């Protein structure tokens, strides 16, 4: 809902891993509710949950995925949606349901340098 990205130091303590990756496949797509075209923005509406396959190109920290591996992760219901070819830094956290992408806008939440810097400050390698 068009809030700014969360400060990274509020989210990173709960993260188990961060990787640079590319979306290679949309594995599951929950039904997307259609919203009427509106003159208003920042409405409390969401993009549906997805399960996507990521191809990891670089590990920034953590053990959830290795470079070159393909992993399935959950894009929770929220402010953004993924499509094949999307790429960038994905911050990941383990939940009961599986591995989930953290950050309000997924790979568009924080740049790689910010993730690396914050991880280093927290001693995450």
């Amino acid at each position: 809902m068009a809030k700014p990205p969360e400060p990274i130091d509020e989210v990173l303590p709960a993260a188990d891993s961060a990787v640079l990756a590319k979306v290679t496949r949309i594995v599951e797509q929950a039904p997307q509710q259609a919203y009427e075209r509106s003159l208003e923005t920042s409405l409390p509406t969401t993009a549906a949950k997805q399960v996507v396959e990521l191809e990891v190109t670089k590990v920034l920290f953590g053990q959830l995925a290795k470079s070159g591996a393909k992993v399935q992760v959950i894009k929770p219901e929220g402010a953004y949606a993924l499509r094949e070819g999307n790429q960038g830094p994905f911050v990941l956290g383990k939940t009961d349901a599986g591995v989930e992408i953290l950050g309000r806008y997924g790979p568009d939440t924080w740049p790689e340098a910010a993730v690396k810097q914050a991880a280093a400050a927290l001693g995450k390698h």
Partner: protein
Amino acid sequence: MPMRIADSRIRSFVETQKATTAPKISDSNVIDLLAAVGDGSRATFDKMKADLTKPGITRAQQLELAKSGLTRSEKSDIGQLLDKSGFAMDPGAKNFLEALIDRAPLQETFGPLSFAVTGDQKNGIAGTAKAGEVIEAINLSTAPSGRLHLADTMVIGTADASGKFLGTMPDVKEGDMIRLRARAADGSTSDWITIQAKGIETRDTRNAVVNLERVDLAATADGITVTHNTKRPLSEPGAQIRFVNARTGEKVDVTATDVGSLPAGLKLPGKAGDEFKVSVSDGKNNVDHAAVTGTLKVPGGTGGIVGVDLPDPKMHKDEMNADGTPKFKLERFTGPLFLNEPTPGDVRQGAIGNCYFPAALASVAHLNPQAIKDMIKQNPDGTYTVRFFENGNRNRPVEIKLDSDLYVRAWGGPIYGSSLGGSTSKESMELWYPLIEKAYAQWKGSYDAIGNGGSAGRVMSEVVGRSQGYEWVSPGSEQRLFDRIKSDIARGVPVAAGTHGSDQASLYTNTGVYANHAYSVLGVEEKNGEKFVKLRNPWGQSEAGNDGKNDGFFSLPMKDFTKLYSSLYVLN
């Protein structure tokens, strides 16, 4: 001597005009009149109207067609209209009617009569106008529940070289009243014409609405005056609005005018303190007025909202504990109101869903920093007063008195709106933006009330004191939008834009633009023959392209703008 009109269609035309606030025979509506006199055994009304508005038809051919079905009694009716109606008339329309009954020669210099809507609206709004004219429209049936003025039109199409147009409007339902006009390249406009949408569904199931926020009641010596307090429509034209005094049970039924307003001079029986239950019927639904829209209370005789002294705004519900206490504490900020001239770069959205607000304020700061300086002042007692204009009406200022306490994160920075480009410490942060945002939350009720979406156009209107408008953005509208932005910016009128909703969020990932979000529009430019629009993200970061700054400012090719953005907010 009163008119005695024989032809039922001409009589209906006259009655419709009499019901309006300013009856007029114009170059636009006269076509309905001509179709009425031209019909007969040879052609139906609809066929005649279609023939009269056929692309390329000349004024002389129109006259010949209209004359072909003219009867003696219709000739008499037209004569009465000219002599006795007292209606205002466009010179071109008057000459045509005079020529029709052989009172004057046809003056070709007026050109063919144009601008008419033809057929039903099953596949859009079709009709004829002069080639190149832009067709503007507003849905009068939905406008009362929205935030639109009567002139807050959207562009639905452009007449092609032959004069034909086919426009689309979102969310038009059977029976909706649509008001249209044609705008020429020189900015001149035709008269309004109003149609009732038909052919979309089998029946109209939506009731009319009445927007009670747009009504003021005031007690006077001889009853309660009822004032329509804005230029936005109150209800659908022709709707029956019922006021019932809850104390006495007395009912007053009125018919909404052709512009969705109340009849002039309306008074209700009652006194100060009375409550009125208000219901509305469009003649098809809620005909027994069983569903009450709401209640209006008569205050102590005076209207206007000035010097409002409201309690501090509570936090957004996301930042409240279950027991209703805030999760964050308040701190008193004591920095300067302005470090220097207000600029868009001062504004930063906080952790709240109100992107429309900082985007609007940054747009105003870009073009009219004086408007920002004029709307906030520090009082001798250390408090501040912020002034808005209710509904964009400069005659209805709303003044909010507030202190400089802001909710802060654990590390001390504001959780909601703050200033960029300097410290965010409580001793030195520039205060104009966070205090104006706080005043807005105070006015509207809480940070929750302003933190779940809104319209940047509405905020610009409330800040500058002008009515708002908008244009839908879509591929193919690059040149029109480029010209509109260029013209508004040159006139010093702020502009903002909104992206598509969350259901289209997958369009946005990796573009640097975000869904369901508002942006300030700062200008347009051309580089190497390509057109760009200059934008700013109210987050003060996250942008399209890579200029190495990540300050929220960026340029976007118009072709991408029309793909990623949904609406352009403008002021009239």
